[in-house]
C-alpha cells in the first residue's frame, strides 16, 4: 500500500506499473485521477491552493484504504493527493486499486474516492476573477459516501 501527500505531480502509468511489477496474480487494476477544472459554480478558476492537516491526512487515507480492504478483495492500493498551488488541468488526486477481479477493483476505487472527499482533511481555495474563495463542501459528496453504509 502506498499513501502519499505531496506537492509534486504523479504519473498514472508509473504508479500502475509499480503495483503490478514482479507479480502475476493481479487480474484487475482500477484507477481514478482527479484534475483541477477551469470553472466551478459559475466562475472561472485560474489557480487552486490545497491545504491539509499534516499527520491526520496520511492517517485518514490509510484508514480509508484499510476499510476498503475489509470490504473487498484488495491486493494492493496507491493513493496520492497533491497539496500546494495547482492550476487548471493539473492532477490533484490518484487512486489505483489492484484486485483479482474487476468488480472488487471498481468498487474499492470508488469507495476510496467517496470517503477521501468527505473524510480526509484537505481544503481547496480557488482563485476566480472576483478574488479567492474557499470551496464549500457539497451535499452530493456526503450522499455519495453514505451509499456505502448499507
Amino acid at each position: 500500500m502506498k499513501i502519499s501527500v505531496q506537492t509534486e505531480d504523479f504519473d498514472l502509468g508509473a504508479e500502475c506499473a509499480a503495483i503490478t511489477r514482479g507479480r502475476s496474480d493481479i487480474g484487475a487494476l482500477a484507477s481514478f485521477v482527479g484534475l483541477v477544472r477551469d470553472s466551478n459554480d459559475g466562475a472561472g478558476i485560474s489557480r487552486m491552493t490545497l491545504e491539509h492537516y499534516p499527520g491526520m491526512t496520511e492517517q485518514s487515507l490509510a484508514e480509508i484504504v484499510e476499510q476498503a480492504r475489509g470490504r473487498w478483495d484488495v491486493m494492493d492500493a496507491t493513493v496520492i493527493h497533491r497539496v500546494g498551488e495547482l492550476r487548471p488541468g493539473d492532477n490533484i488526486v490518484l487512486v489505483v486499486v489492484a484486485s483479482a477481479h474487476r468488480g472488487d477493483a471498481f468498487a474499492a476505487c470508488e469507495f476510496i474516492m467517496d470517503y477521501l472527499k468527505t473524510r480526509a482533511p484537505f481544503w481547496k481555495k480557488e482563485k476566480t476573477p472576483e478574488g479567492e474563495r474557499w470551496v464549500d463542501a457539497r451535499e452530493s459528496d456526503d450522499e455519495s459516501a453514505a451509499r456505502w453504509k448499507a
Partner: protein
Amino acid sequence: MSVNILYFAGLREALGQSSEQLSLPAQVGSVGQLHAHLAARGGVWAALTTTKNLRIAVNRKVAAMDAPVKDGDEVAFFPPVTGG
C-alpha cells in the same frame, strides 16, 4: 492542563492564527467545553459558532462534542473537508 490547538482553512484565516498552546481551566474537560471556552473570547472567535458543520478532531481523529480533552492533546478545528 495544556493542549495544542490547530485551526485550518477558512477558520484559520478568520481567526488569524494556525495554532496555539493553551492552558485550560479545570472545568474544561470535553471538546464541547473547549469549543465554548474559545468562542467566549468574542470578536473573530464567533467564527467557531458561525462556521457551518464545524469539525473537531482530537489527536487526529474526528471527535464528538462530548469527547474528553486531556492534558497534552492536540485538538483541531476546521470546516468540512473539500479534497479530491
